[in-house]
């Protein structure tokens, strides 16, 4: 039998690593086949969860730019009578404005131009004109209309929402989840990031690795960004001309050499390196399978829509989140851009909603059909809200809105979030919260709770301090949001 016939026999990774032909020392091999490996953070955090988690994984859909809450979820019919009247000073109440509008001479109210109606048993008032599909899931969703933050610009606001601190550089929510719970699949990272491409790319905010860095947590807890173009993971593919079977032989040879090295010096790091190469090889086998959505059924594409077949679309990305969740990835962070509607809400909001409406519905439906919704927490929201007053020109048909940190709407579903809840209230102008505020610290505390952690005890020692996601100011788990 020639060597190359041998190759074909060894195509599957099971055979490769379990078939007895491996040159890897048996101890190393045993550790590979065991359930835990430290290479991708499968080891638990200092304590593991503090109590039984309700959510085993998280899919976080971040709407970059800050969707306008009063155009989607925070219904303010009274504003029609306020058209083009100045926002009362008593409502603005000395609020810090961005320098985009702080120089503006007037602050005329821009009522939403979209049609709202009540959805579900819970009677959630929402924009059913642009989000008809999502509305069907209203009773599965836990609506939070009273999120609030201090930040008024994108960079600090996204940082605050994801890391608990306006200054970038702290670990983000996904890194904390990876640190606390580790991965459920030894061939994939615990924390994966996907950046969806919006169909309208008018005004995108810069998204980059600084947002999913591990901060002071060990680097392996950083998000691994899957790319929508080219290799899904950097250099996952062999160079052209080198088939996987041939690569397999060179990794075997390499590990044989490293094994000699290990026998000679007994450096445990050499063992780690042997594992590292074997896991890299397994990833090379598993990632293409993961990202190959052609295997999905017709039903899937009917559910998510035809856009789901196009790489990089939000629908495609959301479908990918389900595939990642199925395979044990702990935290999947999605970014969808172009929600920064300083002008032309009328022109931009419909395409944004079209991007997300069906896929969000489909994701919840799909997870439910697969029995995964109960332990998968889906989160949707932006980094802040927008102002009721217009930025720039105002007409009945069109307007712009500036950043607004004092209130905005987010929603959660599954994973222990209480469906059909409508929590928090804002004033008539959707400007100030009048009931049940949810500060982003409370939001973090609540998510950690769903993941099985007491946010006050979930810490990491850095610079002499027990650092935590929720920081030093008080944060509360909001029990009303939880099943």
């Amino acid at each position: 039998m020639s060597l190359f016939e041998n190759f074909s026999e060894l195509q599957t990774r099971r055979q490769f690593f379990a078939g007895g032909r491996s040159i890897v020392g048996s101890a190393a091999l045993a550790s590979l086949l065991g359930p835990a490996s430290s290479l991708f953070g499968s080891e638990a955090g200092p304590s593991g969860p503090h109590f039984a988690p309700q959510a085993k994984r998280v899919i976080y859909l971040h709407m970059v730019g800050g969707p306008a809450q009063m155009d989607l979820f925070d219904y303010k019919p009274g504003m029609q009578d306020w058209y083009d009247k100045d926002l009362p000073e008593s409502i603005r109440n000395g609020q810090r404005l961005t320098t985009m509008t702080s120089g503006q001479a007037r602050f005329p109210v821009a009522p939403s131009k979209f049609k709202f109606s009540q959805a579900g048993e819970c009677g959630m008032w929402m924009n059913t004109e642009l989000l008809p599909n999502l509305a069907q899931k209203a009773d599965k969703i836990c609506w939070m209309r009273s999120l609030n933050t201090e930040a008024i610009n994108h960079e600090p606001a996204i940082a605050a929402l994801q890391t608990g601190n306006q200054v970038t550089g702290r670990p983000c929510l996904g890194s904390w989840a990876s640190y606390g719970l580790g991965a459920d699949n030894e061939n994939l990272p615990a924390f994966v990031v996907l950046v969806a491409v919006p169909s309208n790319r008018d005004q995108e905010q810069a998204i980059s690795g600084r947002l999913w860095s591990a901060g002071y947590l060990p680097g392996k807890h950083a998000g691994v960004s899957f790319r929508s173009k080219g290799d899904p993971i950097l250099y996952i593919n062999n160079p052209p001309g080198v088939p996987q079977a041939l690569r397999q032989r060179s990794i075997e040879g390499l590990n044989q050499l490293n094994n000699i090295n290990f026998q000679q010096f007994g450096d445990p790091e050499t063992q780690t390196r042997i594992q590292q190469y074997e896991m890299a090889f397994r990833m090379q086998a598993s990632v293409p399978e993961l990202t190959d959505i052609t295997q999905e059924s017709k039903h899937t594409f009917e559910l998510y829509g035809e856009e789901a077949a196009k790489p990089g679309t939000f629908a495609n990305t959301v479908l990918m989140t389900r595939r990642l969740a199925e395979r044990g990835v702990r935290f999947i962070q999605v970014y969808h851009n172009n929600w920064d509607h300083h002008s032309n809400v009328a022109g931009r909001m419909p395409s944004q909603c079209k991007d997300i409406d069906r896929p969000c519905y489909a994701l919840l439906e799909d997870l439910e059909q697969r029995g995964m919704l109960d332990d998968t927490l889906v989160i949707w929201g932006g980094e802040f809200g927008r102002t009721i007053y217009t930025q720039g020109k105002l007409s009945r048909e069109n307007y712009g809105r500036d950043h607004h940190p004092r209130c905005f709407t987010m929603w959660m579903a599954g994973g222990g979030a209480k469906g059909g809840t409508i929590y928090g209230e804002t004033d008539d102008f959707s400007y100030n919260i009048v009931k049940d505020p949810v500060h982003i610290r409370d939001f973090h505390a609540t998510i950690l709770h769903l993941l099985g952690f007491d946010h006050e005890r979930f810490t990491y020692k850095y610079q002499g301090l027990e650092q935590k996601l929720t920081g030093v100011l008080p944060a509360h788990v909001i029990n009303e949001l939880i099943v």
Partner: protein
Amino acid sequence: MKTCVLNVVLMLTAMLVHPVKGADRVSFNHDVRPILSDKCFFCHGPDSERREADLRLDDRAAAIEAGAINVNKPDASELIRRVLSTDEDEQMPPPSAKLGHLSPQEIETLKAWIEQGAVYENHWAFVPLKPLPETDQSVTSLIDEAVERGLEKRGLTRQPEADRHTLIRRLSFDLTGLPPTPEDIETFVSDKSPEAYEHLVDRLLTSTAYGEKMAVDWLDIARYADSYGFQVDREREMWPWRDWVIRAFNENKPFDQFLTEQLAGDLLPDATQDQILATAFNRLHQQESEGGSVEEEYRVEYVCDRVQTFATAFLGLTFECSRCHDHKYDPITQKEYYQLFAMFQNIDEAGLYSFFTNSPPTPALELTDAATRERLDALQQKVEAIEKSGKELKAARAAVFDEWVKTQSESLSEEKTTLPGELARFPLDEVTGGKLANTVQADQLATLAGGNQIVPGRTGNAVQFSGDDALNLPLGNFGRHEPFSVSLWLQTPDVKDRAVVFHRSRAWTDAASRGYELLIEEGRLKWSLIHFWPGNAISIRAVDPVPVGEWLQVTVTYDGSSRADGLTLYVNGQPARVDVIKDNLTKEITGGGGDNITLGERFRDRGFKEGLIDDFRVFGRELTALEATAIHDEVSAESLLSVDENSEATEDRNQQFEWYLSTIDEEWAKHLKTLQESRAEWYQAADGVKGIMVMRELPEPKPAYVLFRGEYTQRREEVFAGTPAALSPFPEDAPRNRLGLAQWLIDPQHPLTARVTVNRIWQSLFGRGIVQTAEDFGSQGARPSYPEVLDTLSAGFISSGWDVKQLLKTIVMSQTYRQRSIADKKVMEDDPGNEWLARGPRFRLSAEMIRDNALASAGLLVQRTGGPPVNPYELSESFKPAAASGGDGVYRRSLYTRWRRTGPPPAMIAFDAPRRAVCTAKRERTDSPLQALVLLNGEQYVEAARVLGEHVYLEADGDVPGMIEAGFLRCLSRRPDASEVEILSALYREQLEYFRQHSEGAEQLLKIGRAPRDAAIPVAEAAAATVLAQALLNHDASVVKR
């Protein structure tokens, strides 16, 4: 994992046994402080805001007075009673703190300590260094002895010296960041002289690669990057500073100077360009330009970043904790934080950089070489000479004027309100088809739009502004060499804190206000020409406020000199009393967009809301005082002339003379023309010089305040420059600024500077510091494993004159450094981090070294020092993809890789290079499968393997064992053994067989990278050699220093 668990158990056992054992003296710093710091100080420590029950346990007298400690009587001490209590209302730490209980051993330790007198010690790191002992022994042998004593105490022994192949590889990476060449190895291994090792050390320390290696760690500290960071992350040129660092290390600049120049080079007497360049260290933090950001918010962030970087780099303290409150664990108050803040904020900077222009934020140093400097000086001298000749000419023309004025008798009263040089006049009286007429250039109209309206004006109509809409005029793009003037009538409805009357610029902070502008600021008129606000501009502001509800005639002029005294503001025909706000304009005022005059509004600025403007006029020359009066009085300038020379005041006489020169005198006109041309030439040359952000101390300190919770809006008590009281005193005669701060740091009495620096150098060689927390020498940081080693080296470092190369040599000459890095299993398992130094250093190479090693092994590395950053192949895979550099850019050392903070080189990030967003004193070292993918599949590495494969193939003439041996020497710095040759030979043969059958695959593989392929080698052989070389470049010993 098992070994870890075992370790923890062993360590715990050791800790349990130690303090409780009978009469052992309890050390406050070693045994007690960690307990108090972890469990008590949060509420009973230095932070006065958080302090509970007014009790502090970090201060002996206070703790005794409060009854918490009863000296010698643990059982009568409240502290002990409380930690033993089971009553939820009494027990400490309280359940609400979620800190758990003290362990019985910890309580025993506290009891023993109180029994022994409750002696407090100053935190070890704050105790001044003792001078070196009087001894003939070298520092090297002192540290070896100290380590030996420590090992003996723990029943350990040092490992024998590593073999020569290992030593040269270890030394080469540690001192140059590069592998040794096969020739270097041969020379060293065959040199049997006892000085061979020392010679090698000396040789490596003098190579230029040394400075490059040392620079990498310093770039992490300095958070060096080639872009601004944050959201917009525009690229910026700071690399001349990086080259300064490389030069400084290669010249072995003493560390005290290295530090002083970076902190305060601008404040040194007769500072050189290089010394000022060094201060760019303080400007390497991230900067923001996101639309809508608040300028002051980010300015405060920048200053805080400087403080944090300073404190981490030189003090090893977590100073940033004190930004919002007194430090919980270390004796640093919030006030002291802002005392340092006061030193680092004192420059003329903006909190946002310009989006619409690419000028570096101020203050900036214009970087010139000798030839450029010479040329600029010559051009400047030429202008100054012409200015001087102008004075002489003026004196000479006075007599001519006297004669001329006498000849003007009857014609003087003639109505003639058109002034020379008028370019445009907009009476703003009526709108025709949305247009406003121009009475000078009838075809150049202005457009009325938006909420701006025509309303009754001072004469006829005027424009009233909405504040949100611009009125654009079709002219006004003046350069700074061109004299020009603008006159208008205006009326404000209220006292404006800030309002834009007119300007030529693209935007306010988004363009750093580049251009010129007339504003009302704090109720006063302000007239400015600006390259980059605030540090590169000339600006004057009226002393008297603008009256509300009154028409005011305003004329502003500029003479083309780039000086504040070349700006004049006339109000109602008279020169206004003004303050000079800025007087430093060294660059162009054009560019960036917004090339015409705009009235009443500016992008993201505050418009002239409900303000009125009437009769707006623009002149292409500097109007004279007489003309300003004439405009206001609505008469001709001629009518203001007086022929009776005796009856007039000198002031008027001068005004008339100036007007004569400016409008009548032909000699003067020629002079002005020459002057303008020579200025144009000078400015143009100066505009082409690149600037780099540096520090330039303002003459008057900016007021500094404690910021409540660290928030920029929450100013509290005013504070003044100073240093923390718990550290050494501020030198009496030192200035209270950054220079004094540097002097404070390098004072031999300072307890931290040398220790922190020595520790970091040690860390770079051993993989961990003597103090494991290189970033935290405070009471929550780790204690030094060998305090005497740290202190001896530190004292030696100071007494050597802060000689960095000597410090490195002292360490690498030691037996501690030279021992084998692999010990028996027990030592490896008991002390995996090598805290006790029972073996030599061993750790995975840094991201830079791994890439440089591959390039060097393949012979591809281009060793050229310095210059602009380059893009290796991997940047095309970055989050913000950039095409690979042309030429040999892809083969430069990794420290020259372009560092964009939002799209850093992904392969380097995979190997734990920090993102350089903030100061990093210690890199992580992780292992992940992503690293294997980079080394196996990354273009840079596949190409290196391909070229390396060719080299070894040619070297061994295709002989397989020969190829393997050559490859081993290049990549692993040693020869292979028989089994290694066997494995690799088999691999090579297999691959060769495959590629012979799949030549198209081989061709594809050989196309990777841009290095040309050697066609003399058969395709299959070249491909198989590539795979062989890959195995070597991926070999454990290739990426780990042992």
